[in-house]
């Protein structure tokens, strides 16, 4: 059972110390998707396909990938905001599938979620303080006075004043709204927070403020994060370990330094190479790298073998890549990759770069 071992034994960033706080095993999610239009034929579409990963207490696990890779669906499945089609999710040893809705609600206090769009997730009729107070009320924590005190303290933690607390969401800027969203999730003192693109809608200067805030809260409250992003630079800055998703599968999983310095999966290699970096000489850099063919595929027409095969520099047209889905396997350094020819793309790229210079 090589896949089960991922959770059980290895977590390069934390050296496998202690049991994982969150463990997903062989998780799949299938939606019944209706065709376009009012009444198309519905058919099952597998959005997540056999995902196994673990999150260690105190770490930040990054989930990165492009649109359609299933990262947001995965986040919702991890919290059982969506029911799983197959597989299990254990939080602190408890199988989330085994819980009834009341038990799940009680557990949600320890498991919180921060959404991408700070505006859409805030009730426009409530004041900031009321928004932060509401989760306390739902979970029956404290009396009225205590709750309002806790909410104000939490707002202060995220850098908002009591005067801010009286305003409604529309009176805030994007960055401030995201602070409210964070305060709402963190006021319950959760153990694990899933952050779904928490800074993607923000300007870079505000993004930096919010990332710093999340870091500080993690340190002060001993939190564990699952951090979903499409921005690899943010993932590299923020996360301890990173999983790369493509069409609903984990194609590579390693600690930050290993993944970004020595990516093994051809998709990770391409993805990392196309991120534009704000340093001089970008045009030369861009001219020197090979273009990536095609666009992100679709889970509706998932290739039978490796999901990346149709776009892959290394495996395109190779029989084994077309025919067999590569399993997610670990190398000696604890670097997980699902590829029949791991490392070849990276080597090819390094060679090309060397020839250029």
């Amino acid at each position, binding site marked *: 059972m090589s896949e089960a071992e991922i959770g059980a034994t290895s977590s390069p960033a934390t050296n496998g110390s202690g049991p994982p706080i969150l463990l997903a095993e062989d998780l799949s999610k299938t939606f019944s998707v209706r065709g376009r239009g009012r009444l198309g034929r519905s058919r099952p579409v597998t959005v997540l396909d056999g995902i196994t990963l673990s999150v260690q207490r105190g770490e930040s696990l990054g989930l990165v990938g*492009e649109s359609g890779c299933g990262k947001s669906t995965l986040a919702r499945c991890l919290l059982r905001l969506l029911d799983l089609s197959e597989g299990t999710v254990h939080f602190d040893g408890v199988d989330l599938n085994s819980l009834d809705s009341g038990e799940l609600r009680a557990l949600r206090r320890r498991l919180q979620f921060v959404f991408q769009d700070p505006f859409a997730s805030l009730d426009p009729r409530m004041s900031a303080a009321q928004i932060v107070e509401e989760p306390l009320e739902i979970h029956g924590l404290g009396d009225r006075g205590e709750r309002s005190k806790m909410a104000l303290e939490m707002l202060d933690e995220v850098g908002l004043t009591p005067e801010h607390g009286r305003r409604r969401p529309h009176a805030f800027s994007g960055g401030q709204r995201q602070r409210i969203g964070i305060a709402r999730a963190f006021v319950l003192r959760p153990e694990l927070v899933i952050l779904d693109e928490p800074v993607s809608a923000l300007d870079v200067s505000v993004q*930096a403020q919010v990332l710093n805030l999340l870091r*500080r809260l993690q340190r002060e409250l001993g939190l564990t994060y699952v951090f979903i992003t499409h921005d690899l630079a*943010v993932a590299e800055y923020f996360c301890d370990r990173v999983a790369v998703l493509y069409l609903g599968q984990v194609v590579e999983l390693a600690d930050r330094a290993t993944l970004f310095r020595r990516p093994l999966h051809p998709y990770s290699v391409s993805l990392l190479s196309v991120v534009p970096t704000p340093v*001089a000489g970008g*045009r030369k850099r861009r001219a020197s790298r090979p273009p990536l063919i095609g*666009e992100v595929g679709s889970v509706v027409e998932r290739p039978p073998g490796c999901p990346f095969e149709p776009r892959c520099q290394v495996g395109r047209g190779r029989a084994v890549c077309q025919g067999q889905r590569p399993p997610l396997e670990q190398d000696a350094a604890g670097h997980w990759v699902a590829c029949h020819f791991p490392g070849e793309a990276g080597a090819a790229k390094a060679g090309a770069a060397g020839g250029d210079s």
Partner: protein
Amino acid sequence: MTVTTDASSPDPALSVRNLSTVYEAKAATVHAVRDVSFDLRPMERLGIVGESGSGKSALALSILGLIEPPGRVAGGEIMLGGRDIAKLSDRELGSVRGKEIALVLQDPATALDPVKTIGRQIIEAIAAHEPGLKRSAARRRAAELLGDVEISHAEQRLDEYPHQFSGGMRQRVVIAMAIALNPSVLIADEPTTALDVTTQAQVLALLDRLVDEHRTAVILITHNLGIVSEFCDSVAVMYAGRLVETSGVDHIFESPTHPYSEALLACVPNPEKLAQGPLPAIAGYPPDLSSLPSGCAFAPRCPVGRDIPQCHQEAPQPHAVSGPAGPAVVECHFAEARIREASR
């Protein structure tokens, strides 16, 4: 004021002087673009960088004469092809838009009319300027354009609708419409922001090829400094409706002179010089464009000028400086001092 980075250049393709745009609401007047001047040489690729609310999209729309009420261009000149297009009526501008100066917008999902075929929308771009054009000829041109932006089976795809195209393909269609009449200037407002990074790289490569083939000058508006580095020759940093630093592209990355440019660069998580610990965020928020401070708009957030009375009282004039990576025009009282420091 001239902020060209290359004084020996021939006649500019586009020359903007003292352009100002305001939005007049009941309660307040928002100064979205404040006295902006710049030149764009033929085939130059100018990146305009700014955060949301800095006025960069309003600048693009002002140049095209597409500011809708309650907004209006309050003053300035926009010289294109030897005349001031800011003085033209909307109808006269119609013959300029799309023909001499074209527009590509951010979100390909909403930049195309969902109930019209791709073909009709491309033909419309051609027919707006060539009313006598025959249907079959227009269709042939549209198919050629689709082929030009690397969409296969162009002839069949003309009859398809936007929702049958992926995001990257739609952006190619928008680009095809923009280059249909070989404009001398292309304004691209965040053309890749809504796309996945791998698709974004493809669209940039396509823009590269097209602007080279058509000899088009490009204004690329973006919040992403990485894209500026990868695509542009020159860059203008926009803050609170003004271009606070204008230079060649290397200057901004090697010795950013305006404190805002420097701070903006520093707070992007940058894998190539990744530091642990907190990101150097810019304190505070961008100013309210309806009630701007009297001095430098960046002063309240500025690590250099926050405590200096001059910065709060006196709006800085453009200073032409020459840094280690080329000349720049910087609107900061301390431009010269900061350049000397950087060169040391």
